[in-house]
Every structure is written in C-alpha cells, then in structure tokens.
C-alpha cells in the first residue's frame, strides 16, 4: 500500500476534511490507498470509510487512544506505516492532525509539507502544491526521501460518497512512555445551536467590529435574509459574544460555503485559514487597511450599521 490517509473522527464520525483528502487520494492514487483510524471502539467508524471508496482501512483500537491526544497516535501511525510499507501519509489539517503529522515526521525522519491545497500521486510518487507568503506565490513541493508526509489545508477537497465496503485490519501498538505522559483531564463537548456552519451555502460571520454581543443581531438578520448561518471569529467567541460551535479559524471550524460575508472581521491568519476556501468572500469593515480586503472578492469600506441592515432589506426584497 503506497498511500495512507489518516481518518480523524469525532463522536464516531470521520471528519469531513479527512474524507475530502481520501477522495482526492483515491482519485489520483487509485486503489493503492488505505485509510488509518486510531481510537477506542472505532470498528464501525473504520468500516464506514468503505462508503467513501476505500477498500482497506487499518485500525488501531485500544482504550489508550480514547482521548484525542496526538502522541499515542504518533506511535500508532509509526506501527501502521511499518505494517503497510506506506510511502505517503496524508492528513487533513486540524489541531490534532497537525501535531500527529509533525510528531511522526520527527519519529520517522520523514519530510512534512503543510498547507497543501492540491496533490498528485504519480507511480507512487507524491508532489503537492501550497500557496505561500500570504498566497502571493504557488509553490510546488516535493520530498527527497520516503516516507512523505503531507498536511492538507482543511476544506481543500470535498468528500465523495461512492458506496462500497472496507476490510478493516487491526494493528497492535506498543506505546512509548512519554507518549502517554500527557493526559486528558476534561474533554470538550460542543454545544451546537442553530444551523451547522459546515453545511451552509451562505455564512455571515461577525468579528470585533460588531462592537458588542448585541451587534450579532446584524449578522443574524442578514443571515436570515440570505438563508444562511451565522459564524464568529475566535476573538468574539473568547469574549463570550457568540457560541464556540460557530467559531471559524485555525482552532475552530473550517468552512467553504458558496458565499462568506465577513462583518467587522480584520482577516487575521488565524481566521483566514478557516474560510479561505469559500466560493466568494465579501468583507465589510470600516478599516480600509484590514488584511481581509487583500483576499475578499468584494470589499466595502464603510459602517456596518448602515450597510448590513440595508443589505438585509434588499436581499429580502430580491428573494421574496
């Protein structure tokens, strides 16, 4: 097996980002691709990957992998790489996967390229592309040795449901002492409310520029007018203005709606990585120098309190 795709899961479900990378790997790597799942009680999740076209899944299933901590997963992946003879190991970027990929890179003395937006597998050989320096240059990157490890930007690829089933192979792992030194004391449980931002075609997101928690009324009104969902930046979630489940960015959700409207969001890299794959980006901000204008398709320098309500009114009229 030349290529492994790490299948990150949460609450028994394989994450959309991982399934997107799997779809791309299968499209360019054919059936020389297997999934890897690490956790506790993951047999069903492992088998579910078959519906996304992969026929082999390696599973590392033990109580020590219950908590989503990276270091036990480095041990697990090392064992699976050895068992499978894989030369390419692909991850969809996330808080957990980034740490697993980097730990594995050091462990295997294997090159890691990150921020990948596209990749090819030709005769087992992996090459990839990543935008760099604030997306001002597109770099084609390679690896000089094997194994090759890649972290793919979240949202770069969509999952493809093909139907089918997967054979699950269990791999046993002996954990290193330092890999189990960090312990989960309390694991987060997301309190979801309202429509999920991951599935919305239109997202209206609010940042500090909304001024106060009440400012989100503007975002909600506009989202309702456009039939969309409301999202928020980390800064306002941290400040308690809006729920965690709506957070977009490096430590939040990655979204790729057809239309993303940013209200009072500066566009810091932490936020950008979570929404840059959106179809069209609209930014409304009073600061003409806000970085978001560098990557917005349509930018309005102006007062939110004037523009957003008018936009909602016009959208309601258009949509009837």
């Amino acid at each position, binding site marked *: 097996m030349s290529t492994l795709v790490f299948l990150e899961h949460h609450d028994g479900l394989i994450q959309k980002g991982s399934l997107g990378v799997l779809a791309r790997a299968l499209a360019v790597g054919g059936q020389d691709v297997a999934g890897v799942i690490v956790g506790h009680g993951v047999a069903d999740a492992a088998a579910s990957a078959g519906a996304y076209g992969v026929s082999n899944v390696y599973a590392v299933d033990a109580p020590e992998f219950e908590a*989503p*901590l*990276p*270091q036990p997963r480095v041990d697990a992946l090392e064992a699976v790489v050895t068992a499978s003879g894989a030369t390419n190991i692909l991850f969809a970027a*996330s*808080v957990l996967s*980034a*740490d697993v*990929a*980097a*730990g594995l*890179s*050091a462990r295997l*003395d294997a*090159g*890691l*390229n*990150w921020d990948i937006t596209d990749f090819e597998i030709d005769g087992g050989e992996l090459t990839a592309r990543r*935008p*760099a320096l604030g*997306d*001002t*240059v*597109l*770099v*084609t*990157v*390679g*690896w*000089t*040795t094997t194994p090759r490890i890649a972290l793919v930007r979240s949202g770069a690829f969509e999952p493809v449901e093909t139907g089918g089933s997967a054979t699950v192979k269990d791999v046993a792992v002996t954990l*290193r002492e*330092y890999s189990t*030194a*960090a*312990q989960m*004391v*309390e*694991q*987060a449980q*997301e309190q979801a409310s309202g429509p999920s931002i991951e599935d919305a075609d239109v997202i209206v997101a609010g940042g500090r520029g909304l001024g106060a928690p009440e400012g989100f009324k503007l975002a909600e009104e506009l989202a309702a007018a*456009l039939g969309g969902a409301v999202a928020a930046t980390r*800064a306002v979630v941290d400040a308690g203005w809006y729920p965690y489940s709506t957070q977009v960015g490096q*430590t939040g959700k990655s979204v790729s709606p057809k*239309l993303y409207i940013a209200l009072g969001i500066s566009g810091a*890299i*932490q936020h950008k990585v979570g929404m840059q794959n959106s179809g*069209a980006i*609209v930014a409304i901000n009073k600061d003409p120098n806000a970085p978001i*204008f560098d990557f*917005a*398709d*349509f*930018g*309005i*320098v102006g007062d939110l309190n*004037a523009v957003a309500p008018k936009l909602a009114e*016009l959208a309601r009229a*258009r*949509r009837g």
Partner: protein
Amino acid sequence: MKIAVCVKQVPDATSGRKLDPTTNRLDRSGEGALNATDVNAVEEALRIKEAHGGEVVVVSFGPTKALDSLRKALAMGADRAMLVSDDAAAGSDLVATSYALAKGLEREGADLILFGQQSSDSDGAVLWAAVADRLQRPVISQVAELTVEGASVTGKRQTEFGYDIISAPLPAVVAVSDAINEPRYPSLKGIMGAKSKPAETLSLADLGADPALVGAAGSRTSVLTLAPPPAKGNQIKIEDDGTAADQLIAWLAEKKLL
C-alpha cells in the same frame, strides 16, 4: 523553574517578503522582526517566572542576525538568549530544524519549553510536536490558558470542538495560542538593560550536532517550482457612499449568489 521559549526571527512584514529565485528559499536579507505570536510565548514565560521564580531563556535557530530580534524578548524581561546558528543550517526544513533546535534545548535542560502559535513566514504551526518527539517529552498545543503546579502543567487546549483540559508532568513542551495573554511592551529600562544581558551564539559543532542532519543535507522536503498564484478574479473594493449595499446586491445577483 527554568523556562525555554523557542522563538524565530521572521522577515519584517512591512518591508515585504519574497523568495530568492536562485535558491527558492525565503529571502532573509532584509529587516527582521521577532515572530508576532512568539511574543505571547515570551509573555507567558515571564508570567510563570513572576509567579514561581526561575529563569527565562529564549532559544532560536537561524542566521546570526536573528540575535537582533532576540533582544526584544530580553527587553521584555527574558534573562538570556541562546541562538543556534551555522552556515550549514540554511534551508533547514521541519525535520532538520527540529533536530537542531532539540540539540540546543537538550543543552539547556529546561523544565518547560514554550512555543508560539505560528510562524508568519512559513505559516508553520507544527514545530513543537516534532521537537517534543525528539526530546521524548509530552506536548500540549493550542493552549489558551496555562497553569504550572508543582511538577506538572495543565493547559486549556482550543480545538474545533471546544476546550480540552490536558495535564502533563514536567519537563514538557507547550505551544500557546495567541489568545493566552496580552504581551507587555518593553520598557525603556528593559530595552537599555537588554543590551547587557547574556546572548550566546552556538554552532552545530558546539552542540555536538551532526551537520548531515541539518540544512539542505538534513532536509527531507524540497521546493520544485514557483508560480504565480491562481488568478483570484477581479477583486472589487469600494468605499460606501450610501450605495454600497445596492452595488453588492447587484454583484451577488450577477454571480447567482442570491
């Protein structure tokens, strides 16, 4: 408590960043600055020192001129700086950088090793996990709140799903998020004092590091080609003169986004 803070000098954002077309590497010849989110890690180290006592040492891997940027951390209050620098080190990727940095950190033997959230030049947000594996230490990343108690650290990690609370025995590696604190500004006294604080530069040989594992020789990734980014299409930016909402609605309708 001895705290090592890993920091990086990055090209100053205001002076522009570019790749050197002959080496395909980032051009580091211009003005450098301390990587912005590393400042949060320095601040956190200083706060821990203020509460528990001890020493804060900033550790970096880069060209000799990176010492200029380490002075900012000293001006904020760090006690000393250690730079791993070597002509053979240019072009180091993650594997090579984690090796060289781990060699420097092994020499320091700190109880707590801190990293900032992301480097602004390579957009990398992974180094801590590679260094932790090399040092065989526990790692906690994306930490928005950190407490040190006795011989352990507890971090509140931000993930896609909410906050996790993770605890680890010292020595440990912790990567803090930029949400963890508001860094102080160096005082005039701090800036003056930084000039006389110890700052040493060590070569790979000083650390007993194998030069074959550093720089281009030790790197496992390569840059094949550079190209302009895919065209983003026409970007529109207007100032609201009272008609911005109308113009946007017309644009959305034209793009069939309504």
